[in-house]
């Protein structure tokens, strides 16, 4: 088992996308438990995140690492039912990275994530809530000009009578706990790991009827 996981790790850390994919397939064929593979991929992605935090990796490296994590995780994911469903997207701008990292971490944590992508507008979130019936709506705003779209999304959910059905989590470089409270969101996270913790907290609240 170790040699297969090591092969995945070596390909991953040298950014050999197709080799990492092939190594994941070989590991699955050899009977390596899916949980072990996803755990390894998660550790590798976290290592990439740490290297970015200390300036060893650029956004380009992190983008490549995210795509490698994603292809491996898709192959190795288990059939365990998701713990909850999150609809996520970047409001108004094409900033993808923060939102993508949260999507990957939530997926790895057992959530089903519907990614609306970037340059998303409030009405698209409302449509997704009606269509996908998520537990949580995660709204990312990366530039200040798009902050009003977070408020508008919360308002539109209220107007459509959908607000009580979902928890609203906001985040992004220009947001704050104060802002989240001001617009009536249920949660706020300053970074990706805390977004996962916050999503779990909101899910618990939802299940407890809070």
């Amino acid at each position, binding site marked *: 088992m170790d040699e297969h996981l090591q092969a995945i790790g070596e390909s991953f850390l040298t*950014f*050999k*996308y197709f080799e990492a994919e092939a190594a994941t397939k070989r590991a699955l064929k050899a009977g390596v438990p899916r949980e072990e593979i996803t755990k390894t991929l998660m550790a590798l992605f976290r290592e990439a995140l740490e290297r970015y935090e200390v300036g060893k990796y*650029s*956004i*380009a*490296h992190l*983008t*490549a690492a*995210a*795509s490698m994590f994603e*292809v491996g995780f898709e192959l190795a994911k288990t059939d365990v039912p998701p713990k909850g469903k999150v609809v996520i997207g970047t409001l108004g701008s*094409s900033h*993808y*990275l923060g939102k*993508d990292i949260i999507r990957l971490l939530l997926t790895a944590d057992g959530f089903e994530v519907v990614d609306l992508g970037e*340059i998303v507008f409030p009405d698209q979130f409302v449509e997704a809530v009606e269509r996908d019936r998520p537990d949580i709506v995660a709204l990312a705003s990366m*530039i*200040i*000009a798009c902050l*009003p779209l977070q408020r508008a999304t919360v308002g539109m959910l209220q107007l459509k009578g959908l607000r009580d059905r979902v928890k609203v989590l906001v985040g992004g470089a*220009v947001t704050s706990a104060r802002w989240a409270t001001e617009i009536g969101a249920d949660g706020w996270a300053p970074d990706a790991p805390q977004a996962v913790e916050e999503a779990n907290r909101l899910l618990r609240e939802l299940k407890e009827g809070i």
Partner: protein
Amino acid sequence: MAEMTGKERFLCFLGGEKPDKVPLLHWSVDLALALSGVPMHQFAFDAEKVALGHIKYVQKYKTDVCVVNTDLWWAFEPFGVEVYITDSLIYPKKTVADRQRPDPKVYQNLEYRDPFSGKRADVLRRAFEIVAEEVGDQVAFRQGGYGPVSNLALVVGVKELLRDVVLFPEAVFGAIERVMMDWTVDFIAGSLEPWKDKLTNINWGFASLDRDLAPPEFKEEIARLELEALLRVKERVGPNVPVTTHFCGPRPDLDFVTGKFGDALDELQFWWPGSNYPLEDAVAKFGDRYAIAAGIDHTRTLLLGNPVEVDAMVKSALDIAKDRCSFALSSGCELGIGTPEGNLMALAEARDKYGAY
């Protein structure tokens, strides 16, 4: 000193001479669109409305420089880049590598396309001509484009390019050398032609050299390619036409870029307050070599603040830079759609109040 036109003021600034007052520079497709009186799906196809909106913009907000555009993607349509056009926005719906599995063939198969063969190119070039004819004696123009690396990102998708330059750099850099270098030179030189004798400068966007964006191992190569493209544009347009810049990001790598581009640039325009590069540092390091344009935070003070805060922001920037270098008040990037008119008026008033020499 006698009142100068905006054009005279900006040219003095670029030449390192003292104008009557500090030039004012900001721009916004969204606000020009609002001033044109038509929705985006009409604006984007009507040269006269594009020109009208931008002319009204410089006249109403008293800027010394005009930047005419509708969006980033019109010249990429011949590559197959498609956009959505709503009442108020243009944004891409499909780029060449959009959301596909990483595939080096996307780059290997990329072929040159004439940047002006798309259906919206004629609209923009005609709009440039109208604006040059109408206000070419009063204001300067800030037209140009990004370098070949950024242009490839707009063809294949920013996210896709960032991923792929790490996964298969040879294919990516091959496409830049083989296709995007010529395309960039043809696009920028061709975009500057309609301005004829009203052309004041070549503007170069440095999106690909933001501090965190590019892999450090490729920065030298990216800079080499960008410089080659710029020098070729200068050759076509005229070696004495000044080169202005635009650093879009929150972590502008001014040190690296000035180190690599040296005398090929005449001005540094970047986002402060807002980015992590203090104006004080830029003035101290580069003020004796380049004209510097900064001082307006388009994302916080101008968008969310009030006229008193705008006044204070202008004063603060001018206190730092006005008498220490050739300085222009500039927003970090394009202004957002909700920027209050009162703040824009306060900006012009504060420039007049604190910016006179």
